[in-house]
């Protein structure tokens, strides 16, 4: 069933009918189990990119027995082409805070942390003031939950949840072995819910408007809407909240400049979709999922440069601990350079594609596993541009 592009206003909605604190008060009157059921029913999946069902995450953490648990808001938005979390934290931070408090209530946590990338430190002054006010509002209502703030310092990989914990613990942001998963052993080794900024806002809004209303949006596999960061060759770059499950050609019609050659869906670690596939590409968990980054390229752009940029990015931002990622990224980057210079035959690209297959299944974390996405989708669809 094909859908049309539908703009939505949930995330940034600030009508008088809904103040975040009212949603909080209303929701805390319900039982935790009831809240979890509601969240599972809504079909909300994580908006950071991986798409794990949020309700299940909360449920697993609730089921763990531990004196200390944590709620962490992942605001380490580093995926190239993504800037929605910054906008959310700037405009509606209280909705994020409320999502965290409700989560804390449900899972039995008393401390929440927002880990925000250092690149957004200019938000700090305003944000800390709002957080202060909010924490005071919690105390006034005798709600035993406090939100703290932690800043990153320029490392993309810290957006990976276990790397983020390591960073919060004062260590190098190197992803951990899994299992154990955060719901069992996260920050400080304690059961932890870690949700993306946008996910937390959706939880707040689902408790506000009800799961049913949320479910009306999207498709069976991709419920609800999502905030997209639109950039590149578009006359109207910016932030847009759109219903999930849209066909890519609708998106290109709306945002493209009339000469769109390709769209990189999901940032540097996402997939490149060429013009000929716009019609049968769905944006959502059943098609190409995305953390929100949509980079549009028109026919004047060299896809070699695009791929080179992404590979340089991964080569620098790999944490460096596991072999497939540390060495694999360098081989891919140097490999396309060698092909371009004619030092390796075009068929070397196929050797590199096989390497990405290994990286996809053998790298320790999502970074190394996903480098093959841009590599294969660009090499497959724009092979000539890579070679010549």
């Amino acid at each position, binding site marked *: 069933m094909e859908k049309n592009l539908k703009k939505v206003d949930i995330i940034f909605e600030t009508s008088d009918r809904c103040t975040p604190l009212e949603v909080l008060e209303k929701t805390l009157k319900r039982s935790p189990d009831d809240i979890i059921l509601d969240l599972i029913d809504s079909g909300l999946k994580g908006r950071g990119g991986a798409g794990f069902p949020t309700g299940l995450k909360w449920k697993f953490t609730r089921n763990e027995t531990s004196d200390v648990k944590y709620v962490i808001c992942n605001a380490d938005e580093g995926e190239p082409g993504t800037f929605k979390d910054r906008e959310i934290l700037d405009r509606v931070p209280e909705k994020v805070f409320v999502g965290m408090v409700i989560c804390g209530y449900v899972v039995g946590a008393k401390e929440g942390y927002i880990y925000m*990338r250092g*690149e*957004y430190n*200019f938000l700090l002054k305003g944000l800390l003031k709002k957080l202060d006010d909010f924490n005071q509002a919690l105390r006034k209502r005798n709600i035993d939950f406090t939100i703290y703030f932690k800043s990153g310092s*320029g490392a993309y990989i810290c957006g990976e949840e276990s790397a983020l914990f390591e960073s919060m613990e004062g260590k190098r*942001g190197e992803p951990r072995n899994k299992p154990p998963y955060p719901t069992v052993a996260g920050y400080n080794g304690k059961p932890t819910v870690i949700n993306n900024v946008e996910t937390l806002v959706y939880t707040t809004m689902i408790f506000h408007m009800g799961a049913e209303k949320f479910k009306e949006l999207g498709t069976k596999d991709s419920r609800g809407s999502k905030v997209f960061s639109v950039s590149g060759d578009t006359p109207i770059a910016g932030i847009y909240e759109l219903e999930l499950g849209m066909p890519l050609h609708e998106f290109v019609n709306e945002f493209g400049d009339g000469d769109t050659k390709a769209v990189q869906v999901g940032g540097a670690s996402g997939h490149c979709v060429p013009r000929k596939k716009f019609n049968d590409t769905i944006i959502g968990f059943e098609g190409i999922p995305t953390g929100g980054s949509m*980079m549009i390229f028109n026919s004047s752009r060299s896809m070699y440069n695009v791929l080179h940029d992404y590979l340089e990015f991964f080569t620098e931002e790999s944490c460096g601990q596991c072999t497939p990622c540390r060495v694999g990224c360098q081989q891919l980057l140097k490999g396309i350079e060698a092909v371009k210079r004619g030092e390796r035959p075009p068929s070397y690209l196929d050797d590199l594609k096989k390497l990405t297959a290994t990286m996809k299944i053998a790298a320790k974390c999502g970074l190394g596993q996903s480098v093959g996405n841009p590599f294969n989708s660009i090499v497959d669809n724009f092979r000539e541009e890579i070679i010549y």
Partner: protein
Amino acid sequence: MLTTETLVKELVEKNGRTRNSLMPVLQGIVREQNYLSDEAMICVAKELDLSAADVYGTASFYSFLDTIPRGKNIIRICKTITCHMQGKDDIVNALSNALKIKIGETTHDKKFTLLTTNCLGWCHKGPVMLVNDEVYPELTPQKALEIIEEYAKKTVI
């Protein structure tokens, strides 16, 4: 100005004497001193009972925790493809010419360090740069030069 030792002691006092405080302590030093000197890292190691190599290893993981001397103002120009498409090179060239330094270098008067960095999250309003913590989107070479001039004026070495 605070001595490094006092600064570190204060930061440790404020953030706590545990490993979990390492990041905020290092960030605090960089805020005051632009980079982590050998002395600063040793002070941190002492206060948090870590080895100096461990502190260095952790700091060097993070691109905002410099362990080499930096200028008073650190310019970080976003080098991601979308900013590149919007003229990032022109900004780099303009600043490089005006400051007479290449990327990675610091001006003689120690007022500026010029760096490039990965996505700053302003792809819809590129090119963009950070000067210290402040963000400047929708740059033109002219605008970038004016901004730097302002910083030059108010920076006393």
